Structures are given as C-alpha cells and as structure tokens.
C-alpha cells in the first residue's frame, strides 16, 4: 500500500478491493417478532425466579408497603424520579438501590434499565449489593424483539437477568461477583 495513506483510507481501500463484486444479501426474517403469551406476568415471574432472583407479584395498592418491608432498615439509594424521599446518597456505604425499569422481557426474565427518571445512573445500580427493581405489569413484553423495538438506542442501556454470577471455576455457578449479589423484583399489577 502507498505510504502516506492514513490507516482509515488503507483499511477502507482493502475492504473495497476484498468484496468487489460480492452479491447483495437478502435477510430472511422468518423468526418470531411477535409472541403470543397469555400470562405475561406469570411467565416473567417464573423466568426471573429461574435466575435465583427474588420475585413478588404485588397489587399496586400494596406496592408502597411492600417496598417498606423490603427496605427493612437498609440504607437505600433512591434515584431522582423514583417518587420516594429519604434516600441514602453515599454509594460506597449504601446497602442497596431501588429503581424502576424501562421494559421487561417475559421469555428471558430480563429487566432493562435506560437510566431515565427513577432508574438511577449506571453506577447507582451497580455498586450497592442489593437491587430492588419495580416492574409495572404493562412494561412486560413477551420477547426480545418486542423489547428492542421499545428501547431508545441513544440512551445507555443495562440489561439485567438475575444477580451477578460466574461459572469460571469448574463451571460451578456462583451468584454475586461484582454486581449486586441480591436482585429482588416487585411486579406491580
């Protein structure tokens, strides 16, 4: 290659030479983009539970009292927009964090945070050892395609499926490495 060409120009030129005349590719999208799930709350709760997270289905009228019971004296970070006062500000000494989420996926038992109001910063949801997440029933979608469609790529996104885990030692699953070791999900109906 000619000297003086920037790395960018040289790589792009090599790419163009390599694929000159390569055919156009049709992308077959015959997979399911809409799933029919009769009991979204039930399936989501079951799948979150499979990750050894704690799950409770709570009628909306009892949500406040249930959160109180979960907090149980813990020093909790309460992000802006969560709609509750008296949060603990220091991340290093906090015992936990409570958040809402942007969307939840039934088939995979996943909650997705877009770190908007009530969902905290990425650090706030990561450093404390206990994460209490409130999911509204109408935020639950059946599968991954429905979730991707609802999310805004310009926002930082954190997809969470159960507590932090590793299988690096003899493939034994151990919960709790660097992320919150306890994940508790309240599904508000």
């Amino acid at each position, binding site marked *: 290659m000619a000297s003086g060409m920037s790395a960018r120009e040289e790589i792009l030129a090599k790419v163009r030479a390599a694929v000159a005349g*390569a055919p156009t*590719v049709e992308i077959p999208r015959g*997979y399911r983009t809409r799933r029919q799930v009769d009991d979204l709350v039930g399936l989501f709760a079951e799948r979150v539970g499979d990750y050894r997270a704690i799950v409770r289905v709570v009628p909306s009228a009892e949500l406040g009292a249930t959160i109180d019971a979960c907090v149980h004296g813990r020093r909790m970070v309460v992000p802006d927009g969560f709609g509750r006062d008296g949060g603990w500000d220091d991340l290093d000494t906090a015992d936990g964090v409570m958040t809402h989420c942007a969307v939840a996926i039934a088939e995979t038992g996943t909650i997705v945070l877009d770190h908007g109001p009530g969902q905290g910063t990425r650090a706030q949801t990561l450093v404390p050892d206990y994460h209490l997440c409130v999911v509204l029933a109408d935020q639950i979608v059946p599968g991954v395609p429905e979730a991707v469609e609802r999310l805004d790529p310009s926002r930082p996104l*954190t997809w969470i499926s159960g507590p932090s885990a590793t299988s690096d030692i003899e493939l034994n699953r151990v919960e709790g490495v660097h992320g919150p070791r306890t994940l508790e999900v309240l599904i508000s109906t």
Partner: protein
Amino acid sequence: MSATFIGMPGNFPKNAEKAVQDSQLRFNLRKATHTIRDKRAEVVGELPDWGELRAAGKAIKDDVLHNLDRYLIQLEEAVTRAGGTVHWARDAAEANRIVTDLVKATGETEVVKVKSMATQEIGLNEALAAHGIAAYETDLAELIVQLGDDFPSHILVPAIHRNRSEIREIFLDKMPGVSRDLTDDPPALTEAARLHLRDRFLRSKVAISGANFMVAETGTLVVLESEGNGRMCLSLPETLISVVGIEKLLPSWRDLEVFLQLLPRSSTGERMNPYTSMWTGAVEGQEFHLVLLDNGRTDVLADEVGRQALRCIRCSACLNVCPVYERAGGHAYGSVYPGPIGAILTPQLRGMTTDLDASLPFASSLCGACYDVCPVAIDIPEVLVDLRAKAPHAAAERAAMKVAGWVLDDHERLATAQRAATRLRRFVPKKGLPGPMSAWTDTRDVPEIPEESFRDWWERAGRSASAEER
C-alpha cells in the same frame, strides 16, 4: 502479566500429544465441555424458531461483510456525532500504539480491563507493560490466567483447564492480602476475587474493553457479560477505550433482536446472560475512544471461502462440541482463538508461515459438529478443507500426490498399479512404513492388500455371475 501466544513454537500434533497425556486436564475439559453443551442444547431447544434466527444471523453478518466499507463509515459518523472519537488501526502494533498514547495522555499508569479477545490477539497488556502501564484483567477467569502467568484455553471460560485447588494455590501465591485461610470452595474463591478487585474498580480512571457488537446505524456498542466486572469498567472510569475488530458490526439497531437471542443461548447456555451493557458515544460525562482493528481481517475478507469465518460472534459453541478440542484442550492451538473456529481463523489472520499455524487446518476430524451448532452457520469443515489445500506441503508429499493423481486419473493405470500392489503384498510391512509415510503408520496399521482387486474379480467372476442371474 499473562504470557502471549505470538511466536509460540511447536505444532498442533506435538502440542496435543503432550496435552492428552495430562489426565487432570482431560477430566476438567470433558466435564466442562459436556456441561455447557447440554445446557446449550436445552435452551436452544426452547426456541421453535432457532433455525430462522440462525438463517437471519448468517445473512445479517454476510450483509455486513459485503458492505463493510459503508457500515464502517456509518458507524464512525454515528459514534463521532455522539461525542466519541474513532481511531483506525491497520495492525497490532498500530492499535497498541494508539491505546498506549491515549492512556499516557490521561497521566494514568494503571488500567482495568474487561475480557476482550481482540486485545489478547494484539498482545495489548504486554505492549502497555513495556511503557510502564499496568493492565489489570477483571474477569474472574482472566484474572486466574493473568495471576498464574498462564495462557487462556477457551474463548468463554479461559481458565477451564484449571481446577479449584489449582486456583486456590494461584490466589494464595499471587493475590496481595488474601487470607491464608482461603478454601478451594468456588464461592470463597469468587469472594476473594471480588474483594481483590473492588477497590481497583472504584479507583481506576481508565478502562479498556472490546465489544460483542457495534451497531452501524446508531453507533451503539454492546458488551455481554456475567459478573458485573464489565459494568464496573464500562461505567465507572472517566475514560473508556474500546478495541474492536472491524467485522463486529451489525447494520441496524433491530438486528440486536436476532443476536441477543443467538449469542447467550449458544455461549453460556442461558436464556440471557446476567448483564448486557449498551452505550452510544460518550455517556454520563465519560470520554470515549473506539479503536477499529484490522490486523489481518481484510485479508480474510478477500478469500471467498474463508471470509465466512468473519461472521463469528465468539460464542465458543464449536469448542464445546469438538472431539478434538475436548481431548487436546485450548493451549495446543497456540492462539487466543482455539478450537474449530481457531483452526480456521488463526491461519487466515496470521498466515500459514509457521509450523504451528500451518498445522491448524489439520486439527480436526471434519465431523461437522461445529457447523451444526454455529449460530451464524459458518461451514467450518468447508474452510478447513480449503485451507488444507492451501497449506504448505512437503516435497515428498507433493510428489506422491502427483503420482497418485496420475494413476487415479486413468482406469488402465489404476488396474496396472493394483495388480503390482497385489504381487508385492507380502513385502509391504503392516506397521512402520519408511520415511514420511511413517507419520501415517505411527497411529494406524497398513490396510491389508487383497489377493485380487475388485476390478479384476468383477472381470473374472462378477460380470458373468450377474449375467447368469438375469
């Protein structure tokens, strides 16, 4: 510092011969590969549309490769618009220089790292160390490998070759401040790693990562992980540098709906991995640099058969089903990319100029299990056979093949050769053929040469017998 594979001596058969003598290694590998492959089969079986997802995944990646120039420019624009800085690196040396300069500009001498194949491929840790910058691996398995001054042996679980008591020894030996009472219980070992790294995460100003996917349309980078070390590195430090191979693109945001189903189920055998982070440009006040790495990829792209290896999403499903990997282990491949995918990727990325790299296309029985499980349908056996033809062959072998081709090309010549072999059958040894043919008889007997060839028998008896039956 962990060791580097670059310039490793030996070849696959020699390395594998040593590995298969190690019964502890074989036990660890067998247990691990069978556990993951069963988990994978279970969660893949849950999806009625797995075949359709796989077909879509293959086509999306082919579209990326065929239009890579356009998508790279689109990605660069999107990342830049979102406040990130994009750098281009032709090879390992250039990428290492870019990253080193970026770290130096921050004034820091320590960086934390998220598990990344690309940075291992280019030997980034060693390059940083040469400039007085310490790179700390934060994935548990990578930490075990790094502390043990060892090589990774699997894409997903790099310390798969180590058992719990070996890991305990490494921690006691190399982890500052670890309790002498540390047991070899996996939760205890995990807790030791958590405490060891906690402070470092909160203190570090610079992190280095790779990425599983980059979305051209939006400029979004995606990292899938399990432990939370990825989230720590991606969100806490002030500066984030991501080194990513140019083939890791997806055209559109929507394409994640395919790959976020294919990758976790193929890789860890879970419906979804614990944590996936996505970010677009500079986020929450962070400084973000993206280093796009070629390092041989455009050469692979130029090969019409071999380019399908660039569809790889590094799930490691092919390792877990491979009978050769299960017995030989990852180190025998002498590359950060072991197993079937490594056997086609490494010789293409590095060329087949060393004995080791030229031996890799032969590290397979061509059984095809790797192709069956590949979520992007890379026909690994097809590429292996193609590379075998391109690999350098010894003069004697080439001459023998030429003669064989000449004989087999003509039925008269074949019949003459078969009659000659029949007459000489008593003189052909059963074992230990001379010269280069001994490589074949080292592990096999010479097949018995029959008294009469099938052709001669057919001429003599078969033809008339079948005529009578009619």
